[in-house]
């Protein structure tokens, strides 16, 4: 029976029996009892009451039993802090056991106990184990220092463990070096996270040599640790950067995918310091085969690889340019893999491979999974917008798909067609009748709104546009808000183009929208149109039928600064989520502050900030092609991001409350105003006299130039950054 009063188990039941057996005089019975205790622990039963009884069995020659007792201790040390102290003697004794396995086990377990009371007793044995003759013990002790730092950093500093670790980087055993590096990196990140400015582990050039030597000798996981440390090293000159790259490249041939990704990451970082174009190209070329091979891994690994490849392609678009076919989906791929592959296929699409891509996408569009089918149809649209030469073929495939009359395929195709019309205005008018023929089958708001937009846009070319729109006006009150808004706009467009036939219709829709509708957005928009139409039809025309810039697909879905950051974080969760670490890890301090710091240092200050906010608002690049014309759905954070790029006068005008369409209107007047240049002393003179279609980009550059005091990024005419498109979105939303 246990001698500890007050903590005694009741005299019956399972725990009582266990306690009797744990105190049995027979060794076998005791060991069996320990196993049963662990079994109970595993299924989640509380066996903490048996602590003293289990503890008695700690001193044993039987290694398996010892491990079990240690395991028990790790689990319950926190609940029984005052009793853990009883285990200390055995631990300290075990740490001097002749068997290295026992020494390592003791030091490893002590580090895991995480009980305040025991930590102070850890330092002496740890000191010895760090100098142990056996590398197995040393490699365990090295990590134990990191454990200690996690619990009580001052103990590590006071006992000189950190210096000792730094000396161990020169250990003759590669495994010890690898664990030492892992421990030092862990300590470094913990101290950075805690906000200390002092860099606890900086890698100098003598360390570098040791790392490069250990890299070729240590185990696969050790290589990952070393490569990650190499990625943090700042090369002194170009020659050293080249040297590091040359030494890291052989790791591409490693069978372990995380070694390959860590090697690619290290090279991507050190390649920045290399100017030789030839050398860079060779490196990038060598990356492709190992990346493709990662696609033969298990699906979860493939997915992580695909997410990283996606980033890499944004940074180095040429890296897999001939490899699109390897991304074709396999029938049995899990959905998450297929979706990533789709995205990458579109990235790799060009005028030479559009045909096989389209026939593949068409195949996917006939699969069973509705989600995947929709994404495939969307991908066809993205390909059409990306590759002008292939747009017609894309449209033909879409027509084939519409002919299948499968409801969700048709709806998605209609949405996609709307984007194609926005990119290539007036080119594919011939297919409008086909689209209109499917009007009855549309039941999703987005598809309906898209078709209504198309009808409104081409009202003067569709003979029975009034009839078609009339259907939606009749059911106006039953429709969802996005459809209502779009109906409203399209009817007004129709009226402006063909006033003679649609006077009644416009009256009716304005009446219904202002009187019966319960959405303030719809009501407000109707009022604005009404007043515009009644006061100045000319102005109404200028606003509602204004020319809009065509949409385009951005080459990247994150800002350049964020892309650099994510590439430096390759193979981590940040690179998998495509979000900076600050947005998903708990420690808020790292998040905003360090982001802010980096921005200050960065050239692309404003774009980084914007991208960060965009990401934080959960905005994805896909939205570019969404027909999101509901201002009220837009998170206000996004609206806020626009402010920083405008001149103060415009900023005041839109005042961050763009959920109100009135403000949207004002902001558009602001834009229109800029087209007939408003007095703006600081804007560069080239803004005058440029063709209107180019206006928004130029305008933005002018403004960003203002915001940054002249440090503007070069004009990106071909690939406007996401926020640009976002603005277009807003413009479109109103019309």
């Amino acid at each position, binding site marked *: 029976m246990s001698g500890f009063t007050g903590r005694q188990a009741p005299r019956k039941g399972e725990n009582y029996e266990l306690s009797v057996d744990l105190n049995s005089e027979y060794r076998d019975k005791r060991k069996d009892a320990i196993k049963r205790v*662990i079994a109970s622990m*595993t299924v*989640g039963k509380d066996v903490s009451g048996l602590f003293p009884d289990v503890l008695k069995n700690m001193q044993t020659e*039987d*290694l*398996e039993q010892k491990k079990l007792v240690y*395991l028990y201790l*790790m689990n319950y040390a926190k609940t029984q802090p005052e009793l853990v102290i009883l285990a200390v003697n055995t631990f300290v004794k075990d740490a001097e056991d002749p*068997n*290295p*396995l026992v020494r390592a086990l003791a030091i490893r377990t002590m*580090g895991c106990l995480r009980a305040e009371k025991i930590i102070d007793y850890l330092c002496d044995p740890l000191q010895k184990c760090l100098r142990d003759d*056996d590398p*197995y013990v040393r490699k365990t002790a090295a990590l134990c220092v990191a*454990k200690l730092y*996690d619990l009580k950093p001052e103990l590590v500093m006071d006992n000189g463990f950190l210096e000792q670790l730094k000396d161990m980087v020169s250990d003759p*055993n*590669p*495994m010890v070096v690898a*664990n030492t590096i*892992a421990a030092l990196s*862990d300590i470094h*990140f913990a101290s950075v996270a805690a906000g200390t400015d002092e860099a606890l582990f900086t890698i100098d050039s003598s360390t570098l040599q040791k790392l490069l030597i250990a890299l*070729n000798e240590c*185990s696969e*996981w050790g290589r*990952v*640790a070393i490569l990650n440390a190499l990625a943090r090293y700042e090369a002194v000159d170009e020659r050293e950067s080249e040297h590091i790259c040359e030494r890291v490249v*052989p790791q591409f*041939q490693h*069978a372990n995918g*995380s070694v390959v990704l*860590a090697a690619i990451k290290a090279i991507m970082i050190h390649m920045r310091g290399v100017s030789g174009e030839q050398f860079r190209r060779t490196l990038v070329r060598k990356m492709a085969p190992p990346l*493709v*091979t990662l696609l033969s*891994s298990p699906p*979860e*690994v493939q997915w*992580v*690889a695909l997410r*990283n490849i996606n980033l890499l392609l944004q940074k180095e678009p040429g890296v897999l340019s001939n*490899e699109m076919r*390897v991304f*074709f989906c*396999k029938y*049995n791929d899990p959905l998450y893999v297929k*979706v990533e592959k789709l995205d990458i296929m579109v990235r790799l699409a060009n005028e030479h491979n559009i045909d*096989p891509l389209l*026939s593949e996408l068409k195949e996917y569009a006939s*699969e*069973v999974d509705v*989600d995947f089918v929709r994404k495939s149809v969307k991908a066809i649209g993205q390909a059409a917008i990306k590759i002008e030469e292939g747009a017609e073929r894309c449209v033909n495939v879409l027509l084939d798909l519409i002919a299948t009359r499968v409801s969700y395929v048709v709806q998605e195709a209609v949405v996609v067609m709307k984007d194609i019309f926005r990119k290539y205005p007036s080119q594919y008018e011939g297919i409008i009748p086909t689209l209109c023929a499917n009007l009855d089958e549309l039941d999703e708001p987005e598809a309906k709104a898209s078709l209504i937009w198309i009808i409104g846009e081409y009202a003067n070319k569709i003979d029975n546009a009034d009839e078609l729109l009339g259907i939606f006006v009749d059911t106006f009150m039953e429709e969802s808000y996005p459809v209502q808004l779009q109906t409203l706009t399209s009817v007004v467009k129709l009226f402006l183009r063909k006033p003679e036939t649609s006077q009644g219709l416009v009256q009716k829709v304005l009446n219904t929208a202002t009187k019966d509708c319960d959405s303030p957005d719809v009501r407000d928009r109707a009022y604005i149109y009404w007043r515009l139409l009644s006061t100045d039809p000319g102005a109404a025309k200028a606003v509602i039928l204004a020319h809009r810039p065509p949409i385009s697909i951005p080459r990247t879905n994150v800002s350049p600064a964020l892309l650099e950051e994510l590439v430096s974080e390759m*193979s981590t*969760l940040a690179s*998998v*989520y495509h979000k900076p*670490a600050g947005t*998903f*890890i*708990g420690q808020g301090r790292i998040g905003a502050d360090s982001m802010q710091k980096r921005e200050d240092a960065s050239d692309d200050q404003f774009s980084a900030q914007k991208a960060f906010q965009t990401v934080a608002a959960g905005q994805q690049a896909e939205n570019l092609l969404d027909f999101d014309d509901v201002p009220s759905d837009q998170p206000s954070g996004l609206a806020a991001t626009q402010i920083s790029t405008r001149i103060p006068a415009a900023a005041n005008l839109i005042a961050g409350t763009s959920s109100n369409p009135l403000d949207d209107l004002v902001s558009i007047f602001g834009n229109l105003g800029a087209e007939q240049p408003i007095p703006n002393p600081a804007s560069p003179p080239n803004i005058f006299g440029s063709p209107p279609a180019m206006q928004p980009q130029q305008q933005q550059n002018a403004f960003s130039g203002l915001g940054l005091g002249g440090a503007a990024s070069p004009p990106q005419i071909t690939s406007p950054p996401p926020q640009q498109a976002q603005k277009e979105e807003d413009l479109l939303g109103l019309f």
Partner: protein
Amino acid sequence: MASLIAILDLKGKPLIQRSYRDDVPATYVERFLPLCLEMEEEGQQLTPCFSNQGINYMHIRHSNLYLLAMSKRNTNAAEVIIFLHRLVQVLVEYFKELEEESIRDNFVIIYELMDEMMDFGYPQTTESKILQEYITQESYKLEVQVRPPIAVTNAVSWRSEGIRYRKNEVFLDVIESVNLLVNANGNVVRSEILGAVKMKCYLSGMPELRLGLNDKVMFESTGRTSRGKAIEMEDVKFHQCVRLSRFENDRTISFIPPDGEFELMSYRLSTPVKPLIWVEAAVEYHKGSRVEYMVKCKAQFKRRSTANNVEIFVPVPDDADSPKFRASTGSVQYAPDKSAFVWKIKQLAGSREFLMRAHFGLPSVRGEQEVDKRAPIMVKFEIPYFTVSGIQVRYLKIVEKSGYQALPWVRYITQNGDDYSLRTAAEKGSAPIVPM
């Protein structure tokens, strides 16, 4: 880096878990599956890694189990996911099968393995052969205590010293798996060859091995003209025993092998491959009554080779019934669980061609919304003594300081990969195959 690793059953109940760091409470394990279900309900896509309230969940599936790792930091996802796969591999090698029951029966040893394979969230030793040397199922109670094998921390961490064999032999298996996708028009859309060189090594001491292949890059760099064909491997991956820097320098494959069975290297070629076994099906679909298939299978390799254990999976509608088959060779079975029928041909000689017909009944009434999933035809096969790529082992040099002679044996085999599929011709209106 992982803070906690757990194995869960399909209901999300943890079977065993081990915490490596304190920052993620063990109770979060039970939130995993509800979160997955919630995401699926909201129409979000479930991915192997996701984040919720500052905790990152990284998981893989193995048969009826989830293996879950959790972390609070911006951790190395690739490393963690690959580690989980490695954990599965080790446990499978220990218990043959990894499932709920084998976990319950072996929890003690799994705890021991989890303790040894990861420390403070960093992966340590994951070589199952080395682990088996000091973590064993039989506990020798009063015998000498085991010690950590030197190999654990050695530069050669995969081989122990003092291995002795009476007869020194090495067996090399060169296995090529062909992945290929043929579209409905009969064109090859994608093809790749995944090759692997597997070794069974029964050698004494610490032998130094050098493997010579008909590698085009090496021939070119050494300036030799090859007799016969040289192959261009697009990407080569090696077991950690191979000295990568030497391969990078002069394409020499040199290594000290682990003992016993292991995969020395794998390679990939994306040269276009003609389908070795060609299958096409004409489908006549009579809605509401029956569906008929005519399947043609053709061996498109040389006459002197033979494909063994050919299995052709032809998909049929889920609700097909009363199957009738007639085949000019082999046997046919209906596999309703896979919604397919399987045509099995024990031996298919090169350049031969065979036909089979199948007839199924269909229910007369069908739900409106049902869409036919258009699964492709899948083929399984094995062709011994043959490689598609033409890879050849030119030599295997074995040097050990005791100077023994050892014999290498080489075997070649080509088989289907995990995705050898041919898309069926569109059902209606396609011209029926004319019988031979």
